[in-house]
């Protein structure tokens, strides 16, 4: 134990799914827990997933030492409206996706190059003017970050990212 605390803590990034009752203030409880206890939120998505049961699913990407991540899971689990907490990074194989809208403005060769790269990333233009595109791109967070980086010299104006959603592989639910 003593040695473990002497070494430099290893920071990991984990993706949690939290199934909650969709009651007033439930998101504030989760977010307040993170800010109150000093945990990081790298991204967060939330929406109702079962309108008859009124449950919402929150996906949180967070980072910390393994000890902190274990605490995050336990602390979320003890919030009263929480049904389940799953850590996709350790519990079972999962896939994670994110969507982004990326606005690029330019003319001439840069504009052609932007369209060419977008095609390679399977990003599709959802708004087009003579001087700009808005691309819709879906994929892993890394893929989106790579795409954004490539758009930088080609007239990147702004980005809107959804944050990560994740689900387990195979037939079983979370």
């Amino acid at each position, binding site marked *: *134990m*003593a040695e*473990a*605390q*002497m070494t430099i803590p290893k920071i990991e990034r984990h993706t949690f799914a939290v199934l909650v*009752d969709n009651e*007033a*203030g439930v998101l*504030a*409880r989760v977010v*307040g827990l993170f800010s*109150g206890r000093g945990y990081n939120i790298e991204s967060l998505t939330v929406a109702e997933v079962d309108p008859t049961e009124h449950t919402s699913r929150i996906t949180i990407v967070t980072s910390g030492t393994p*000890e902190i991540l*274990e*605490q995050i899971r*336990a*602390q979320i*689990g*003890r919030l*009263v*409206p*929480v*049904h389940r907490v799953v850590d996709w990074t350790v519990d079972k194989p999962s896939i994670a996706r994110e969507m982004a809208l990326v606005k690029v403005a330019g003319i001439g060769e840069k504009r052609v190059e932007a369209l060419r790269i977008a095609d390679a990333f399977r990003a599709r233009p959802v708004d087009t003017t003579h001087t700009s595109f808005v691309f819709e791109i879906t994929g892993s967070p890394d893929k989106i970050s790579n795409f954004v980086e490539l758009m930088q010299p080609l007239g990147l104006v702004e980005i809107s990212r959804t944050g990560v959603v994740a689900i387990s592989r195979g037939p079983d639910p979370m």
Partner: protein
Amino acid sequence: MIPQPKQMTGAEMVIQALKDHDVEHIFGYPGGAVLPIYDALFAANDLVHVLVRHEQGAIHAAEGYARSTGKCGVALVTSGPGATNAVTGLADALLDSIPLVVLTGQVATHLIGTDAFQECDTVGITRPCTKHNWLVKDIADLPRILHEAFQIATTGRPGPVVVDIPKDIQFKTGGYIGPETVVHRTYRPAYEPDMQAIEQAVKMMANAKRPIFYTGGGIINAGPKASEALRELVELTGFPVTSTLMGLGAYPASGDKWLGMLGMHGTYEANNAMHDCDLMICLGARFDDRVTGRMDAFSPGSKKIHLDIDPSQINKNVRIDLPIIADAGRAIEAMVKEWKFRDYKADRSALGEWWEQITRWRAKRCLEYRGSNELIKPQYAIDRLYQLTKGRDVYITTEVGQHQMWAAQRFHFDEPNRWMTSGGLGTMGYGLPAAMGVQMAHPDSLVIDIAGEGSVQMTMQEMSTAVQYNLPIKIFILNNRYLGMVRQWQQLLHGGRYSHSYSETLPDFVKLADAFGCVGIRATHPDELDAAINKMIDVKRPVLFDCVVDQTENCYPMIPSGAAHNEMLLCDADDHAVSDAGKLLV
């Protein structure tokens, strides 16, 4: 045929729900946004309402009531400042796991969000200092929420909850359903222990050479049966027991296995035994920083078993070898049963050596102090108070500071629920209103708040409440004119620069008692102390006791900030170099 729910107003539902949950006493303060509930209360003859003088007092009184009875404490306050004044008490109850249902009024639903008069975001403000809270927006939800509030406050790891009820909802009529019809959608606290974990734990205990029970408030919260089970387990195994501040009384201080409290102002024997043990059996405690001292030097050679009803406590501060998530009472009973079933015997020779070592630590007599014939030493005052009230039906509350630690060290408890103190939050001003709550529940008992003159002034106004309700609480003030614990730390850590820790002026507590309409008693010399204490005990009215003590006495033993369990200071003469890292700690 399903019976039709009875029609009533929201305010009447509140009163009905209180009755359905066997509430007999509530502590509160009226205001605009709770007037309909107060109107319904006017007709409720079987509910005793105690009108406090400040909402913080209501919450602490409800805490004292809850802690001394094992029941849920209930408070009723108005919107805005009523709710914000309750916040300190809520945070206090959350950290000490005290079951409270606090009802707050709110402006009418159509005014919410308009910065209306006495509006505040009560659920937003109280979210991080409650176990759960609700804003009731529809009369149809009110009965369910009230029942869930009691369930969540009192089960699992207990804690405070807030139900925020807008004024229009209190007036609206709806159907009332009883508690038996409510099943919570998500809340499922664990009670029964995993038997494999119990078997493994008991096996580890049977093989231990230097074991120790480290017990906490979880045993008190689990009810008197948990304390009984603990006593049996200790007798069976012969292991030494120490306890946190919150757990005092679960194991009797008169028991021969008792090492005294552990932690920053714990005993030398308890802390050294924690440091040197090979098996730590933590029962309903949470490895608080007051208990562990320097974390990387905390009990380095031991295996650790941790029993807690709250899974988030496992591995929070200290790595645990064997967790048990369960109610403390049921788990300890299961341990007793398992020990007997396997017919285990503790390792006698190893345990004998361990007790010899403990005897050597005890021989340090770490609670001894230099007496005086001229001045009342605060330790002497507590010792006399203990001796002169021994054998009586006595409950003790405290404020926060040196007097609290001296009380914890020197006032010995043989039963649970007799000791009410603010452990986690360290709330000065807790003890006086808490004593009122205790006295309300135990009208014939002797209820004493061991106080400091600093803390007690924070909620002094509640003496007026005590007088109104004939609550004969005894406020025993160890008056050293200093904020003593602050002064002690300034001496030890800040070069004796006593920055703003001395009270140039204080009220004359005897005259103040007179002004409140209660009894004032003062003792300034050791020779007059016994008679004064006896007088206090005999008075059947509230008492302010001004016990004028040595101004510069420090509280020892002490683990200085950033030090380990085996690096205790026993007196002022001990070297107390505190590291820079230690100075950062509170």
